[in-house]
């Protein structure tokens, strides 16, 4: 009986156009053969041979396939050319076309499915009793709230002259689309003063799967008190680069911008090499901060971290920073070296 059903179904099945790959996944017989022709295996088949009208169905020798060695992760379905496959030489009787040749129409629910009150439970318990529960149900299934605090860089920068310390932290709290995003960054000399310190409070709004637009304020505590309006873009660009680009308009009318990019190169699951670059720009000279118009400074770093736990990773690295153009001239004028190479020792942590 089963064989008869299968054969009938197979006859009904129209050729190649109607064959989907789910059907091919089930050779009906002989039963002791591997039960599945994986797509990966199909890649290895010689489709030219299948094109040959003289080829016998038996030419596709399922027993030669080694499914155990197939690497599903490496299959590339995107590159398969289904147009180029010719199934005409395959024997339909040997395949299980239990799936109907033409799928039933995707016609949407019939009118009966729209009849009656909006909610079934209301007919038993009443809307007054059920409405609060439904509200909770919605809130608990999609209204996600979360947050994280990330200490991206907490490091000592050892090199010529004073040894410096630096912190660079950020955190967010909120839902999946809108979040409060807080960032803080600063630098100082060990045993000396804090040279720069800033805090940003931003509203972060998802504009795509990987990018947020961020707007808010930045407040500089050092070297002098100064507020800025911030507009930026933060996210994960193609090839997994973390990007953070923002423009700042200070309360004195100065326009500056910063672009940061970093990339996690996994050497092992725990050992990660992170190249990082930062570019600072200014639209005008800012004399009191020694900044000249144009690209004012670049920073490049290479950090090798070991994740003792996901949340805690000490690192060692090398950093190069250079003031450029007018900014470099101003540094030289006050006897500072505009370039600096540092050995970086730090820790990256989040929770």
């Amino acid at each position, binding site marked *: 009986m*089963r064989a008869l*059903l*299968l054969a009938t179904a197979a006859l009904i099945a129209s050729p190649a156009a109607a064959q*989907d*790959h*789910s059907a091919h*996944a*089930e050779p*009906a017989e002989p039963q002791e053969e591997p*039960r*599945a022709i*994986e797509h990966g295996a199909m890649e290895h088949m010689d489709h030219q041979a299948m094109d040959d009208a003289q080829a016998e169905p038996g030419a596709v020798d399922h027993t030669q396939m080694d499914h*155990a060695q197939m690497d*599903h*992760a490496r*299959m590339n*379905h*995107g590159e398969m050319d289904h147009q180029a496959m010719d199934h005409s030489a395959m024997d339909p009787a040997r395949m299980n076309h*239990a799936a109907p040749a033409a*799928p*039933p*129409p995707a016609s*949407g*629910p*019939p*009118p*009966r*499915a*729209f*009849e*009656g*009150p*909006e909610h*079934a*439970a209301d007919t*038993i318990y009443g809307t007054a009793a059920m409405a609060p529960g*439904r509200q909770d149900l*919605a*809130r608990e*299934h*999609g*209204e*996600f709230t979360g947050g994280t605090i*990330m200490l991206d860089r907490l490091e000592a920068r050892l090199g010529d002259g004073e040894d410096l310390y630096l912190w660079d932290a950020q955190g967010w709290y909120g839902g*999946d*689309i809108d979040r409060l995003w807080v960032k803080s960054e600063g630098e100082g000399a060990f045993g000396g003063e804090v040279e720069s310190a800033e805090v940003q409070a931003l509203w972060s709004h*998802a*504009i*795509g*799967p*990987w990018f947020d637009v961020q707007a808010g304020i930045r407040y500089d505590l050092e070297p002098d008190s100064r507020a800025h309006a911030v507009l930026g873009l933060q996210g*994960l660009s*193609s*090839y*997994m680069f*973390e990007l953070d680009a923002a423009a700042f308009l200070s309360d004195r009318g100065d326009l500056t911008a910063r672009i940061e990019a970093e990339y*996690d190169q*996994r050497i092992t699951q725990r050992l990660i090499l992170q190249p990082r670059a930062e570019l600072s720009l200014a639209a005008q000279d800012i004399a009191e901060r020694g900044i000249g118009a144009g690209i004012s400074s670049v920073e490049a770093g290479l950090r090798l971290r070991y994740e003792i736990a*996901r949340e805690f990773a000490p690192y060692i690295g090398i950093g190069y920073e250079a003031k450029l153009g007018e900014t470099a001239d101003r540094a030289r004028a006050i006897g500072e070296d505009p370039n600096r190479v540092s050995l970086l020792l730090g820790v990256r942590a*989040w929770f």
Partner: protein
Amino acid sequence: MGMGGMAHGDHAAAAGSDHAAMNHSMRDLSKLPPDANGVGVDMVAPMPVDRMDFPGLGLNKVSHRVLRYTDLVAKRQNPVRPPERSLEIHLTGNMERYMWSFDGQKFSAVTDDPIRFAHDERVRVTLVNDTMMAHPIHLHGHFFELVNGADEAHQPLKHTLIVQPGSKATFDLTANEPGDWAFHCHLLYHMHAGMMQVVTVRPFPEEAA
């Protein structure tokens, strides 16, 4: 931020795709219903295949035999009835943002738009997993029949179906239990993030006294 990179590191090998290989064909939103929220969809399976014969990640390379969906056959005969219509539901997500949904919309966004069936209608439902994780999808109140290659009278009955990453899986449902029923991913974190819907089977019976 590190967490995103982590999630991808864990799953990239499993699904055979990572962002490095990303291109437009890996995220063709036109394959989803028009009201899908693109922010919550980090990829759309470019060519989902039925993988009911797949033993499961981690079980696909073991030396012993593993029970798979294609091994199942119903013990007792089911009534044979061809499906009257088909329905495709995408399992969607964005791991960078901890977002999970059906058809690109989390439950809280579609509370007034349930998945509708008419009482006693028979529908062939195909679940398309656009994500890089397996999802055990559970329908309350019903047993459906896996379209797993078994003959039509002996398709195995289940109420929860694991859909492999980047794959699809199909079941025939005879909607014979009127009412509102939960339909959700049984990884409860995914459910609470929004991979949840109400399945309504109508009309409801006349109110009992």
